């Protein structure tokens, strides 16, 4: 849970309550409370729930604050193992914008192991490669040795 300050005429702040981890498919229940910096609730304000990713944000849900300045969101996650969620208030003529982020870990998601192929060949691979190469050159040596056999056949005494 974290909070952020607004910078408009009447600064606002958002306080976000969310679980730090849920199981796969379990509902993530988020409650946001929008107040002025002095603690007065802001009613009737439109809030957005967004997922924050590496390449940008996407809006997932919208809600309006009640008389207490509270709004709630629900989301079920089935794919990723960690979700950065952001609740944002864009601001209005009377109130400045504010936002709050939270990170929710999703347990039970099967994460593919990170496979980093090493470009440097292992001793086993090197061994196989050099064995293959060696066998080729050994065949050359064998073929060349047949020339020696041909030549030996004419040596004196044979």
């Amino acid at each position, binding site marked *: 849970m974290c909070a952020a300050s607004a910078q408009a005429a009447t600064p606002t702040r958002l306080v976000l309550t969310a679980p730090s981890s849920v199981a796969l498919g379990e509902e993530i229940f988020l409650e946001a409370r929008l107040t002025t910096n002095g603690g007065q609730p802001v009613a009737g304000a439109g809030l957005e729930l967004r997922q924050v990713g590496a390449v940008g944000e996407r809006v997932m849900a919208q809600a309006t604050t009640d008389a207490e300045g509270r709004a709630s969101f629900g989301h079920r996650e089935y794919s990723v193992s960690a979700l950065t969620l952001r609740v944002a208030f864009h601001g209005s003529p009377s109130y400045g914008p504010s936002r709050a982020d939270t990170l929710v870990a999703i347990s039970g998601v099967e994460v593919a192991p990170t496979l980093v192929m090493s470009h440097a060949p292992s001793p086993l691979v090197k061994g196989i490669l050099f064995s293959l190469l060696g066998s080729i050159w050994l065949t050359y040596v064998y*073929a060349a040795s047949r020339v020696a056999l041909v030549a030996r056949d004419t040596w004196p005494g044979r």
Partner: protein
Amino acid sequence: MLRPLQHTGWGFWLLVGALLAVIALGGYAYLIQLRVGLGATGLNNQVSWGLYITNFVFFIGVSHAGTLISAILRVTGAEWRRPITRMAEAITVFALLVGAPMVLVDMGRPDRILNVFRFGRLQSPILWDVISITTYMAGSFLYLYLPMIPDLAQLRDTPALPAWKRAIYRVLAAGWRGTSRQHTALEQGIAAMAIVIIPVAISVHTVVSWIFGMTLRAGWHSTIFGPYFVIGAIFSGIAAIITAMGVFRHVYRLERFLTADHFQKLGYLLLTFNFLYLYFTISEYLTIGYGAEIKDVTLIHALFYGAFSRMFWLMAIVGLILPAVLTLIPHLPVVDRLERVPLLRPVPAATAALLVGLAAVVLHFRGAVQASATWGISRDMVLAVAIVLAAMAVLSFGPVLRRRPVTAIVLASVFVNIGMWLKRYIIVVPSMAMPLTRTEWATYQPTWVEWSITAAAFATFILLYALFAKFFPLISLWEVREARASASSVARGQEVAT
């Protein structure tokens, strides 16, 4: 068969003189390149591979002639191979001798080639290339030499040859007397080499393709590049051997040894690999074009319609379509009917095609815009007419070529050689010229230095081959003799049986 070794006419010296002149010009150009650096070439920061690497890939491809014709046919026991194996094996050696150093020529600082060995990293395809080509070259020398030993002994024992030549043959013949023990040893050596040289040759061109394929560039990063290159190499290798056979058959009057049957069988092989290569080409471009990634589409557009389209379509027509037509012509009786069409008589059709073709070339390269504006002739229309007339010209020669199948196949092989060189150019250059970042396409215009060195490379190849033909029999005499003896003993056996 030994006549070329005993007598040398003025034509040979003229050829050697002309080739040496071309090689000298190439040498001079290379000296300039060494002094000035690669600034003497059209190569630049972006297009760092041009004609030299095109030549490298081309010659390594041609070197597959020996492997296919000799090793595969030997292993599979194809008897008809006997008169052509020597020529094929020699092509392999000389193509490697000319092709491999092209990498050095491409280097601004050739002395740094030693760094490949000093600091070589096994994970680099460049090192794989050095290892595989070195292995192939050593194997090819041995594979050329072994089957020559009995013929070298025959030359050693030929009194008509000069003493100095016979002294060389004596050393090379390794004391061959033709005993059964010697025969056994030699056959063992040849058999071992025939088997091992096939995977080595395939690995060589696969590794050459991986130099491109392991790079994340449009047009190069392809999973089929290995087999695509191997098929292309065998295709151009067959073409090279047919061309060489055609030339030597004509010059040295070898019709008794290199029969129309040999050309026909090699023609079938050429046609098979022609279609295989066409299949790979279509598969490659269709797959990457259908995926429509921006970089791939950009490259394909440049090849099909843009800056490289002339070369691409020339390659397609000259290297893939024309050879297939020419190879098929001798087998199509319907071609004879073309003689009855007055418009398709060779002289009028060829003359018309030549004139309009020339006009099309002039319009296309010089004054297409002006012609279009002045006469309202579309450039594409002129080209289309030229193509139709060129096709008519080819068809008009159909009946003539049908009566001369050897000429048709040799002509097809010459076209394949040209087409495959163009293909290597459009593999190497457009992918390098294409921007990796959002910049302009790079331009590459080979300079006279590069053209001279390229001409010298081809001249060296021809010179080596011509000199080889002067020192060694182009046809494996003992193998042909062996085949004839075996054929006659079979015939005798049949007579006795009847």
